[in-house]
């Protein structure tokens, strides 16, 4: 099925994507810290601070608690990082088609997104600390809470594309090729904006950032899930946090703002690739600023029961309204450009 040249291509691109994901992920964490610091009237650390932190964590002692289950405890951080990088292989980067784009669609990405969280849960339970156990329970509850609105977003967008007669609406290739906004009419655009709002709210929960950081909650659980992690293991989780940030922003970019610079302005081929990459990075930073940095400086932490009600009731409702608007939009004649 897969030829040897294709296998070599996939392996090579996996290596490139890994390096790219880690570097850009850490860079995003640095940008986030700097932006948040400026909004709080602080100077903040230099943007390369996450790289320094990572290097420091690597030379620190890797403590494994006595009552931990060592193999799960050590495996969880590696699995978490690996699974977050795998998601990147399915997401378009700028104008570059995803290396594994032909083998999986948005549904697969949704499934893959749960793996880093599950790894953290497993690692938390395996560390044998009451703080980590409480954190792990909270992480599971949070996951159950945000999966529902996230599913609504994915299904709604794909369904609208399908209604417009587009082939394979779930593949990221078609979603990027036919942006929702160009397919939908005015009602659909309002619906799309509501879905964008839901996506922006799911992002901090997926990344366990304030206000949905109950599973780590520094002042309550002293780091919760990660309380027993140190040294190399913590560095792996730190990297996967960076990669996850990139993944979440890249999904939002792919679904909602997929345009490339090269499709708007004509550029020479070599320049276009670089310009598209930079443009993509800009979009990712924009998404991260609005859904992570801005939210986390403007809000207090929720209690875990509030997290559930926020996602199931309010955001679930907003998502369903968005879905209904998209349906109404498709049902109305001559609403879409392509329909």
């Amino acid at each position, binding site marked *: 099925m897969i030829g040897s040249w294709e296998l070599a291509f996939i392996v090579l691109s996996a290596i490139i994507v890994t390096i790219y994901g880690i570097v850009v992920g850490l860079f995003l964490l640095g940008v986030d810290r700097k932006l948040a610091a400026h*909004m*709080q*009237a*602080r100077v903040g650390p230099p943007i390369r601070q996450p790289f320094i932190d990572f290097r420091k964590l690597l030379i620190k002692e890797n403590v494994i608690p006595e009552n931990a289950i060592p193999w799960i405890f050590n495996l969880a951080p590696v699995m978490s990082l690996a699974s977050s990088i795998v998601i990147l292989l399915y997401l378009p980067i700028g104008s570059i088609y995803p290396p594994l784009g032909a083998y999986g669609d948005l549904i697969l990405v949704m499934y893959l997104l749960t793996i880093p969280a599950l790894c953290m849960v497993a690692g938390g339970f395996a560390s044998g600390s*009451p*703080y980590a156990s*409480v954190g792990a*329970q909270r992480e599971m*509850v949070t996951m159950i809470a945000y999966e529902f609105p996230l599913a609504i977003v994915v299904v709604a967008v794909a369904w609208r594309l399908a209604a417009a007669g587009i082939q394979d609406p779930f593949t990221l290739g078609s979603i990027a090729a036919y942006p929702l906004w160009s397919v939908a009419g005015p009602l659909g655009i309002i619906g799309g904006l509501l879905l964008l709002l839901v996506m922006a709210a799911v992002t901090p929960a997926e990344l366990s950032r*304030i*206000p949905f*950081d*109950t599973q780590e*909650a*520094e*002042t*309550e*659980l*002293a780091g919760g899930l990660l309380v027993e992690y140190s040294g190399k293991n913590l560095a792996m989780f730190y990297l996967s946090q960076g990669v996850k940030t990139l993944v979440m922003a890249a999904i939002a970019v792919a679904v909602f703002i997929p345009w490339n610079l090269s499709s708007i302005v004509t550029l020479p081929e070599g320049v276009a690739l670089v310009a598209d990459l930079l443009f993509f990075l800009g979009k990712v930073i924009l998404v991260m600023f609005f859904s992570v940095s801005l939210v986390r*400086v*403007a*809000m*207090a*932490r*929720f*209690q*875990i*029961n*509030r997290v559930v009600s926020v996602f199931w009731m309010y955001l679930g409702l907003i998502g369903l309204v968005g879905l209904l608007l998209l349906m109404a939009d498709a049902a109305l004649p001559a609403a879409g450009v392509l329909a």
Partner: protein
Amino acid sequence: MSEGSGRKAPYIIPIGPTHPALKEPVMFTFEMEGEMIKEVDFAPGQAHRGIEWMGMRRNPVQIVHLTDRICGICGVSHTFAFARAVEQIAEIEVPERADYIRALIAEFERIQSHLLWAGVAAHELGFDSLLHLTWRVREQSMDVIENLTGNRVNYGIIQVGGVRRDIVPEQHQVIEDCLNAYEGVISKLLELFLDDRSIALRCRDVGVLSHREALELCTVGPTARASGVNVDLRQDYPYSAYGDLDVRTILPDQYAGETRGDVYDRIVVRLLEVGQSCGIIRQCLDAMPAGEVTAEPKIAKLLAICKKASGEAIGRVEAPRGECFHYVRMEAQEAPHSWKVKASSYSNLMSWIPMLRGEQIADIPIIVASIDPCLSCTDRVAVIRGQRRDILSKEELHRLSVEATRRLQV
């Protein structure tokens, strides 16, 4: 998660002695059911430093510098209370101007302490932006305190018999500027803390202490006032210059129209008191009479007076956290015969139990912080027998107290 609690076995979560939720060491043991607190116990005494023991080997002028260091935040309250006790024993008449300066510094201390607390509370809720903003506002009062006393903490301004520095006319402008800035910013702070939805969600009806419980547990200061207990030493027992000043107890119903005794009410009381302190400082500046700032500027002479004194007295001061209480007994010797400090937090700690019971883990940090505990002030004793710490039973404690009283009566 908390459903079906009858079937789940409770598990124990220890918090402390050091934990990010605690600014000072204290040991909590929570018996949990899911996310809900079923029972709670705490053990203070982790920060005992033996300051009283050191004091009983020093003269009152030296002790004043120890009392400055009992607490880093209320650096003037302890010294104020101690000096007032010694002055009563030695019958030293404090000049009126010194009384006003003492009150003025004490009010600045209240401003910076309450703002510090508000920032910590925001941090406990996971709202770090508000922490940074509040502490930036607080800096201004710290600058004024430094201008007036020479120090940001451990002010060293109060001396037995008066104060060590006068406030000169040029400094009035500095104080005035600071007060204007605070009066401008206080409505903004109230809006940020009290109108914010996420703060109200976390603080309304959380950590409730009823009026009755507040009375029964003898709580003091903002903790008691937030439960609707009308107590404020500045009003009930006007010491120093407070007799001449207009001080009315701040109660939460003045802002919200009702008293619920929750964390939110404690924020209300403290923030309103910042505004009240600005008003008191204004009154102090207007009414401050001219004259000496100390009854006896020569230290040697002052020591001689103190050395002759004998008797016992109590010094009470309304510290930012509530009543600060110093008992001193002198017997015509250089060092006091006995000295007992009861910090405001000592009276407030027990209110943690009814506040925490039935709440969630998420609420522990903010509830613990809501009484603004100062444990290094409170910890007066740590019982250690052999290698282990001991807990004294009520009977044992009573026997020891009786023995101590007998010793004093001899």
